[in-house]
């Protein structure tokens, strides 16, 4: 087994199915499809697989799944993260390793022929939802894929008998992460075909981390996150809320900053509350701002050349905002980042390149949902919260000394 590196800092985890398969027997009446309660039961059994051998406890939030630690969705194709599904066959599902927000969530391909475990067969025409769910839950708890033959965390779907028993490799992995359940004895696992009606008590919903407080007004130079950052005309511009700072080419913070964005960038929307991302175009020096689901192309700070929607650039119509944008020094290409994914943008045709988005994991060590990013003096930096990560372009990973506090380094606090 392999521990991915992240784990939950608590033993009682909540889970819930937020988006069910589009075809369920409740509405279609088709015996090929599962009932809603059968789908829930397959997931409940999957939680018992891991809960039984460790000190983990699972509680289903049936009425408010969106508040659970582990949110389960059935999706098809591109569905808002860097792992688009591909129709029936090939990729079945994926999960995010433990953490806030999308961490712990599990996504299943709605195009797959999901069936109850005892109805699955050897043809891949009927895929066991229970086995796939138990595997993905292993990821959501912090386990990576295992190359041990017959393990549940093997990447390839393998067949297990209807009386499923968690293989020892997986038992050792989860116990290494969350300890041993004293009551656990190595006896055969009750067959999944027995109808176990576990009435999970409806718990008080565990609140998910409160959303970041709305952007306050004049920011504290030495104690704030950065909405956007970029080198423009050899100076560093750092944006926060309605204000921005300027740092000259020698690294000195110019006096009388932070100043109001609207005062200097007078052509941007008068009612702007913040900037999401900004970069200076390599090709012609224009400055591109991203605010919500729109972008603004400026020549200098007095001329607005173009306003457009993110979807006009080939980004998903559902994308609400960009987190960061920069020109990567390694290849001179423009990259756009949002949530758990990123795109490469072709300036020549003003459109994102094909076979994007890709998963943020490519930029190893950089967290999801970054606030901003830029290249300065040949080095790439990523920002989230009040910290920043220095990135090693050649090794495609953050440098060991990262992260560090932003304010002392960038604004001389």
């Amino acid at each position, binding site marked *: 087994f392999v521990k*991915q590196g992240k784990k939950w800092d608590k033993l009682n985890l909540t889970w819930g199915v937020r988006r069910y398969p589009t075809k369920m027997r409740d509405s279609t009446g088709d015996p090929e499809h599962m009932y809603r309660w059968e789908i829930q039961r397959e997931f409940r059994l999957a939680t018992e697989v891991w809960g039984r051998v460790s000190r983990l406890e699972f509680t289903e939030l049936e009425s408010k799944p969106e508040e659970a630690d582990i949110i389960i969705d059935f999706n098809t194709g591109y569905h808002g993260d860097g792992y688009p599904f591909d129709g029936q*066959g090939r*990729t079945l599902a994926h999960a995010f390793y433990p953490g806030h927000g999308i961490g712990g969530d599990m996504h299943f391909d709605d195009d797959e022929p999901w069936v109850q475990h005892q109805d699955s067969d050897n043809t891949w025409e009927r895929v066991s939802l229970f086995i796939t769910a138990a595997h993905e839950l292993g990821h959501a708890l912090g386990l990576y*894929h295992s*190359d041990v033959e017959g393990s549940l965390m093997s*990447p390839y*779907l393998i067949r297990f008998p209807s009386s499923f028993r968690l293989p020892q490799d997986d038992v050792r992995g989860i116990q290494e992460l969350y300890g041993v359940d004293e009551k656990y004895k190595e006896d055969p696992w009750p067959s999944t075909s027995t109808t176990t009606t576990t009435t999970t008590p409806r718990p008080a919903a565990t609140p998910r981390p409160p959303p970041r407080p709305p952007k306050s007004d004049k920011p504290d130079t030495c104690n704030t996150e950065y909405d956007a950052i970029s080198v423009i005309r050899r100076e560093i511009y750092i944006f926060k809320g309605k204000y921005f700072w300027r740092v000259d080419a020698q690294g000195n913070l110019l006096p009388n900053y932070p100043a109001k964005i609207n005062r200097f960038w007078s052509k941007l929307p008068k009612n702007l509350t913040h900037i999401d991302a900004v970069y200076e175009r390599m090709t012609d020096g224009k400055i591109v701002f991203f605010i919500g689901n729109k972008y603004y192309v400026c020549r200098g700070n007095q001329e607005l050349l173009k306003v457009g929607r993110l979807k006009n650039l080939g980004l998903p119509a559902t994308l609400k905002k960009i987190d960061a944008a920069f020109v990567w020094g390694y290849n001179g290409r423009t990259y756009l980042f949002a949530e758990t994914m990123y795109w490469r943008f072709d300036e020549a045709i003003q459109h994102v390149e094909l076979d994007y988005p*890709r998963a943020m994991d490519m930029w190893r060590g950089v967290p999801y949902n970054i606030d901003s990013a830029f290249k300065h003096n040949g080095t790439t930096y990523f920002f989230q919260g009040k910290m920043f990560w220095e990135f090693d372009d050649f090794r495609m990973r953050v440098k060991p000394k990262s992260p560090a506090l932003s304010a002392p380094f960038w604004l001389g606090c």
Partner: protein
Amino acid sequence: VPSGDRDKRDIIDDRVQWYLMQYGYLPASDMETGNLRTERQLREAIKTMQRFGHIPMTGELDAATRRLLRTPRCSLPDVMPGEGNDFRIRVRR
């Protein structure tokens, strides 16, 4: 990858290389940096994939390997990138 007189079905084409990158058998970062790979790197990557699929580790795109490429699977990578792997705890028989 020089084709030479090798069996045409054994040419490790872009789709196979994409698969190897997608599941961590080749540095996914090559997709961004455009680094080319050597024949040996490709063969090693295929052997690692065969190890996870529990089929003979020939390093070739033989029939068993082509079947493996079509086997339904989880979409997360199999090999943790770089030296971050915690092989210390991987149990080897």
